[in-house]
């Protein structure tokens, strides 16, 4: 009773201290509900005590029960023993039964606890295991469905065909929810201002990931394609408008505001902003070509190349005198898209950048790419390998240099991939690194990253790990990560489906992780094939239709674009080689086939 009263007062006190951010119901209901509940529980405990623990119950209860015949078998036994002892030698000399010692009980309890843990771990892994078909694309099933559709098309050509393959259940709901945010201007503005208050850089990143996700959605679900393209266009228009009106600084982190003049590159631009905008434009154009966005993207890619070529390590600045590898990797992926869409040839530059990154930007101990460094030739590393950076970098590198990306993913997975029971997560940083951090820095990181103590689990890093795991086909870890997401993300569909623990950026990253695939596949498919060497002329005697006296043909000159790329590893300065010219010269290989 005393405990109940004390608990009630504590709760009332806490409810008074409760901040205004909580609803009045949430402030008042706990004491009102908890007080009678605690009273109820206390009375239950007292009742149980008097029945199950008679030694602790009041004496009068014991006397009352003892008066009942055969109250307790143990008591009866004890009475018998006592009687026998009184009878002395003449009585029946009975050996008292052996009792379990305290040590034996403790051992039994420990063994039971261990067994329970093992059994529950097994049950949890089965119960909480997500149904992966609700989350990600099943390629085999889809292939079977595609074959069925193709068969239908042949057998009944007049029948109305079902729309595209469609999205799994969860990403579909997430995509619709996030699109609805951008469709209604009121919710859109509220969302943007809320995110911008906390961190404008994250708000900007959420746009990129949402555009990438919606581009994949549009390619995967033909029914959603018009709506997805409309939202993508809205996002791009709004982003460009913001940039035009307020400059690139509008998307900078709060600590970097007002530092544009400190940029060391001549154009005073951030490769982070240019790269991500170009990525949005490229993703949009990969789904469906758009002339306006095409021109904008060509300008951006030229700017990106210019900014990066000025860097001693071919890396552009994210913020003044600060380069982030993830932004450079994203910019490289953008150049790769430009090669495919506009016929530009930045492959030499991309190869050179990858070579530089391999030699100068890899942490020797962790064998992973560093995260941040300064804008000098012998870089001062500001931050060594880190989860968010390495997973995203590996993802974008997968379209730039598959081998290097896979190598980085494998190294990162070896050092950061962790799981506890069925729950997968990523650590924030590798334990071994060339770049040690001070205790103050570590404390700051714990607060900034929201690290889970003891486990060193980083929610941000785990979110990006979801993207990388899906990119590199790490299905087992993907399942474990989704298990953690579902357990700790608190998914709700009350108004619109989202994860309560997450924010807009997190939701966009999760959606992108679940739907990614078709965009990169299309990028790989639309890549302009390199100029193939001409086929050797067929000897006239083997050619049935060959004219009898053909003069020997000479090998044709390579295409101008191909020639330029083979002669020099670097493209000409971007300003002097407009993409339109490159596109017009880089004709398909068939054009240069030997003429008879």
């Amino acid at each position, binding site marked *: 009773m005393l405990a109940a009263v004390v608990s009630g007062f504590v709760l009332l006190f806490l409810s008074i201290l409760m901040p205004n951010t909580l609803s009045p119901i949430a402030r008042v209901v706990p004491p009102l509900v908890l007080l009678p509940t605690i009273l109820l529980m206390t009375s239950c405990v007292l009742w149980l005590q008097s029945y199950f623990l008679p030694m602790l119950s009041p004496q009068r209860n014991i006397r009352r029960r003892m008066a009942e015949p055969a109250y307790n078998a143990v008591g009866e036994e004890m009475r018998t023993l006592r009687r026998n002892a009184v009878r002395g030698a003449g009585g029946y000399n009975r050996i008292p039964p052996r009792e379990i010692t305290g040590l034996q009980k403790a051992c039994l309890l420990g063994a039971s606890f261990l067994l329970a843990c093992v059994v529950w771990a097994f049950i949890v892994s089965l119960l909480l295991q997500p149904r992966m078909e609700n989350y990600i694309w099943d390629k085999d099933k889809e292939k079977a469905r595609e074959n069925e559709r193709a068969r239908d098309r042949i057998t009944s050509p007049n029948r109305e065909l079902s729309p595209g393959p469609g999205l799994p259940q969860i990403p579909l709901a997430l995509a619709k929810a996030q699109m609805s945010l951008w469709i209604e201007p009121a919710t859109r503005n509220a969302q943007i201002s809320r995110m911008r208050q906390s*961190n404008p850089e994250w708000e900007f990143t959420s746009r990129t990931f949402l555009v990438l996700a919606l581009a994949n959605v549009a390619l995967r679900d033909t029914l959603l394609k018009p709506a997805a393209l409309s939202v993508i266009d809205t996002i791009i228009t709004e982003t460009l408008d913001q940039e035009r009106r307020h400059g690139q600084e509008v998307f900078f982190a709060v600590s970097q505001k007002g530092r544009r003049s400190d940029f060391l590159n001549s154009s005073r631009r951030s490769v982070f902003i240019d790269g991500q905008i170009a990525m949005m434009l490229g993703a949009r154009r990969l789904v469906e070509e758009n002339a306006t966005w095409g021109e904008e993207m060509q300008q951006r890619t030229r700017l990106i190349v210019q900014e990066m070529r000025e860097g001693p390590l071919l890396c552009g600045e994210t913020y003044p005198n600060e380069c982030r590898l993830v932004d450079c990797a994203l910019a490289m992926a953008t150049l790769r898209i430009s090669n495919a869409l506009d016929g530009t040839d930045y492959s030499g530059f991309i190869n050179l950048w990858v070579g530089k990154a391999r030699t100068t930007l890899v942490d020797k101990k962790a064998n992973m790419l560093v995260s941040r460094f300064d804008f000098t030739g012998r870089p001062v590393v500001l931050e060594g390998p880190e989860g968010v950076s390495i997973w995203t970098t590996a993802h974008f590198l997968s379209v730039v240099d598959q081998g290097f990306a896979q190598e980085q993913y494998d190294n990162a997975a070896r050092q950061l991939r962790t799981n506890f029971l069925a729950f997968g997560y990523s650590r924030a940083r590798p334990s071994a690194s060339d770049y040690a951090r001070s205790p103050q820095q570590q404390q700051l990181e714990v607060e900034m990253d929201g690290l889970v103590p003891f486990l060193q689990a980083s929610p941000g890093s785990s979110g990006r790990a979801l993207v990388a795991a899906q990119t590199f086909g790490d299905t087992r870890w993907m399942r474990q990560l989704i298990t953690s997401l579902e357990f700790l993300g608190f998914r709700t569909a009350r108004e619109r489906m989202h994860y309560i623990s997450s924010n807009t950026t997190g939701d966009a990253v999760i959606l992108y992780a679940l739907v990614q695939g078709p965009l990169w596949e299309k990028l790989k498919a639309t890549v302009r094939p390199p100029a193939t060497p001409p086929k050797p002329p067929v000897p006239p005697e083997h050619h049935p239709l060959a004219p009898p006296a053909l003069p020997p043909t000479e090998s044709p000159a390579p295409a101008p674009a191909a020639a330029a790329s083979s002669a020099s590893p670097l493209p000409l300065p971007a300003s002097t080689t407009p993409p339109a010219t490159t596109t017009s010269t880089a004709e398909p290989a068939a054009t240069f086939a030997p003429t008879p």
Partner: protein
Amino acid sequence: MNPRLPADVMITLRILAAFFGAAAVIWLSYLILEVCGARDTMPELLRGTSSSGSHLNNPDNSLAFMFYSGGYFCLYVAAVLVAPVLVLTGVFFSFAMYFARKTLQR
């Protein structure tokens, strides 16, 4: 409860009741906080993961709020991971005790 039950059965029932009771307290407390809408405070609790600022610098996140929100989070994890283990431990331990006593008395 029948007081005429044999002593072994009574001990088994006591153990089961103790462990089930502990698990029930966790589940009940979690349910109450869930009904109160404590789940909606998770973004505030996990602010450190969703913005550049730490929750410790946020004046809205007082100690009481952290207690309320953090308590919900702990109870949520305990309701899924701890309470079932308690129940299973109770079941295993009570049967182990029962059979151990029987074996020793034989």
